[in-house]
């Protein structure tokens, strides 16, 4: 139960950072998608049903601070979560390179799902240029942010909570066991 509250807290913090802090320090409105990184982490380390419910609620909450279409991020983030769950049993999930790779693929899948949901379900407006044009910067910033967050989280855990068990985190460290 406490883990769910931590996820909710992290998601809330991500929403605040993306809507207030990052627009001040990053130029031209480009900002990394912290929610996507959280969803991929949940896909790697949470149970399917609990994770799916959490991700769907996060998506709806995200819709309140992003865009103007209720349910859009619920659908997109759920799609990404289920895609991660589908491949997680077939690969070695305890690798930081995999996390980076999944963030890259997740960013691309997010764009595909976003274009599908916007172009097929909304009559007015031309959305695909808005999604495709910033895509390279979006992918790059997402991967870079995932890398920095991973390093920061590992440092934080090893320094302040050495005995705490954070799912996957220590194993994702490339130095673990060496």
């Amino acid at each position, binding site marked *: 139960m406490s883990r769910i509250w931590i996820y909710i807290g992290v998601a*809330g913090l991500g*929403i*605040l950072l*993306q*809507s*207030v*802090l990052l*627009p*001040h320090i990053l130029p031209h*409105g*480009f*900002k990394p*998608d912290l*929610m996507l990184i959280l969803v991929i982490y949940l896909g790697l380390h949470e149970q*399917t049903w609990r994770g*799916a419910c959490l991700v*769907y609620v996060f998506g*709806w*909450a*995200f*819709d*309140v*601070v*992003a*865009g*103007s*279409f*209720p*349910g*859009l991020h*619920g*659908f997109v983030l*759920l*799609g990404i979560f*289920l895609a991660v*769950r*589908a491949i997680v049993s077939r690969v070695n999930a305890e690798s930081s390179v995999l996390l980076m790779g999944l963030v890259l693929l997740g960013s691309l899948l997010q764009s595909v799902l*976003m274009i599908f*949901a*916007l172009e097929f*379900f*909304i009559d*007015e*407006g*031309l*959305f695909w*240029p*808005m*999604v495709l*044009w*910033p895509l390279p*910067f*979006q992918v790059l910033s997402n991967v870079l942010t995932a890398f920095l967050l991973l390093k920061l989280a590992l440092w934080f855990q090893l320094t302040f909570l050495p005995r705490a068990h954070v799912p996957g985190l220590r194993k994702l460290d490339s130095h673990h066991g060496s």
Partner: protein
Amino acid sequence: MWEWWRKNRAVLLGLFLLLAALLWYSVSLRQQRETNLFEALVLRVTAPAQSVLTSAINGVADVWGNYINLVDTVEENRLLMEANNVLKSELNRLRENSLENVRLRRLLEFKETQSVQTLPARVIAEDATSWFRTVVIDKGSADGVLEGMPVVVAEGVVGRVIRNSQHESRVLLVTDAASAVASLVQESRARGICRGQGSVLIFDFVLRKEKLVVGEPVITSGMGGVFPKGLLIGHIKTIDRMEFGLFQTIEVTPSVDFSRLEEVLVLLRQVEL
């Protein structure tokens, strides 16, 4: 059959979940026009934190600009530098006040030209993604703000309110791809619809026969039922009349600098939803 179900259960249930989410999204698009309880709750919870964080960031930016950069100066100049910093800080504060004064005066002058009642508001947060263009303002239903109300600044049209809670509202900017404003060219009176496209607007449905000039102002036509007539939207940036076809392709540069949006006016009036 049972064996097949057990083997494919996870995939099928995953697909079912995804389809359910898509269906719910589709239903919401068609039915939901007003802010629901969940959305109002999230806005209510996040907006105070956003407001506090915005103030904190501005405070830190001031301190960084006026003090921390100068901490590593030589010791003998320390007192002088401190005095200098205090003066600079004071000057910066006065300059900021003066700039704010200018902005607010322009807003006030603009407000006085409006026939409808207006409500000044501050922008406290931006859209959380890079794809959409929305902002959060610090006025809500308790202040008389309703969904559909137009939001403007002295330079021109900003957008319209799409969601609100008691003390906060979300505004869809005219540059968002979901935004469409009934518009006309001020000189030639050619009509069309301005759609958002990120940093520019696309002026759709202007007949090819209309003779337009780059730089001409584009204003609201008052036909859409949201914006009053005559508000400046932007200026024509490019015109592509093409070889054939019914319409020409026109790009419009918005008159408002959305990256520097701080104070806005909500035009309070009866909205038709």
